């Protein structure tokens, strides 16, 4: 098959690289003037590059081609060099650019823009995927209170308070929670009064201007383990145990993070240095946390007979802290359910009224009788 002189070459021309095709190409190159030969060579080379034809075949092609084109191309030239050379030949030889050339230019410019944008984006937005720095992301655990229609598990709040009182409160304060907040949440009023009375609070001044000690009342806030921040740091090798009132809201991952942290203590992997006095926990950003593992199986004894495994205690105390961070949670969700019902009803009512009022306007027909 011979192509007519000046015929546009179809770059998308599919071929299978068989011997017949090669002969056709070589025939074109050797029998036509240099201009067309070079164009055809470009087209073929593009096909070759696109379809990853063999390099041997490419060199073979150019060995033949350079007999017709006034420049020596060596067998060892890279495909790109050969291609560029032939490309220029075609550009200089033809009076107007081929559509194929423009397509290629557009493609190259586009590629350049996209590539530069990509590089700039990569340079400007370096995303760290380093789990050691960010802390391991906790898995999502099925907390009861995550459901839009569920309250807290109040039995868990009660157990969690016990864990907080017996374990956590040795170092962590709970400034935002008063004894009275526990009433009808995890404890009865009598129980709360009894618990508060066990703690001495400083009050005053009395008639002589002196401060005095008195038993706690439900309106008192939870006692602090340390008098101030300096005392807390001094008692914990310089690390401040944070207040836990809003801890669930204050950390990425919330409940899942706290639960994972409490149950996530493991030996440091090989090659990770943990300073003296610190402990390895992959969920803690940086991996080294001052708090040691505190929850071990059987540490507390639950009054309701729940087995006090480490994960059970972690789950309970996390539920307790979730309640402490959001005491209004149960009422909020119940109110949300009621609001959704009422507002849905009102929406339907307003839609009905609108359609009712508009029905005669929408369905009327206006007839115009032109004057006779």
């Amino acid at each position, binding site marked *: 098959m011979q192509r007519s002189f000046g015929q546009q070459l179809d770059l998308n021309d599919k071929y299978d690289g068989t011997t017949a095709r090669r002969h056709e190409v070589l025939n074109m190159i050797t029998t036509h003037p240099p201009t067309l030969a070079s164009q055809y060579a470009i087209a073929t080379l593009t096909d070759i590059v696109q379809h990853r034809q063999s390099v041997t075949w490419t060199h073979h092609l150019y060995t033949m081609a350079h007999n017709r084109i006034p420049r020596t191309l060596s067998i060892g030239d890279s495909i790109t060099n050969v291609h560029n050379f032939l490309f220029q030949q075609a550009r200089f030889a033809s009076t107007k650019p081929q559509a194929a050339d423009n397509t290629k230019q557009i493609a190259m410019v586009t590629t350049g823009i996209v590539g530069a944008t990509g590089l700039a984006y990569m340079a400007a937005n370096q995303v760290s995927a380093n789990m050691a720095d960010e802390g391991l992301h906790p898995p999502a655990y099925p907390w009861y209170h*995550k459901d839009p*229609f569920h309250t807290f*598990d109040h039995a868990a709040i009660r157990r969690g308070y016990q864990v907080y009182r017996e374990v956590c409160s040795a170092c962590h304060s709970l400034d935002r929670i008063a004894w009275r907040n526990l009433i009808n*949440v995890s404890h009865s009023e009598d*129980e709360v009064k009894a618990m508060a009375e066990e703690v001495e609070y400083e009050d005053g001044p009395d008639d002589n201007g002196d401060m005095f000690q008195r038993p706690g009342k439900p309106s008192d806030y939870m006692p602090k383990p340390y008098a101030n921040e300096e005392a807390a740091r001094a008692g914990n090798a310089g690390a401040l145990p944070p207040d836990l009132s809003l801890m669930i809201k204050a950390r990425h991952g919330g409940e899942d993070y706290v639960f994972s942290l409490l149950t996530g203590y493991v030996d440091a992997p090989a090659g990770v240095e943990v300073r003296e006095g610190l402990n390895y926990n992959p969920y803690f950003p940086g991996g080294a946390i001052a708090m040691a593992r505190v929850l071990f199986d059987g540490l507390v004894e639950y009054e309701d007979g729940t087995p006090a495994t480490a994960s059970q205690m972690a789950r309970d105390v996390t539920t307790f802290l979730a309640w402490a961070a959001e005491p209004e949670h149960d009422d909020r969700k*119940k109110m949300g359910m009621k609001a959704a019902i009422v507002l849905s009803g009102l929406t339907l009512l307003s839609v009905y009224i609108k359609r009712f009022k508009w029905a005669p306007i929408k369905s009327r027909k206006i007839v115009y009788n032109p004057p006779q």
Partner: protein
Amino acid sequence: MLGRTFYNTLVKKNSVFIATIFGTAFAFEVAFDTTSTRVWDNFNKGGRLLPPIVHYNSVIGHKQWKDIKDKYEQ
């Protein structure tokens, strides 16, 4: 006929109309609160399958304070 009666007895006189609105609002509030609380408590009683929106752990016991307080109050 029904509409006529409704209008004549409840709407025609303004004082009656206002009283009807207030009384209906009060009755609706009581009924709605009672019903929604019952539904809510039923959702959170645990031990039974719950409506479709809820979580896969729906069947496990969820207890509000009112469900467990008998154990701790005399």
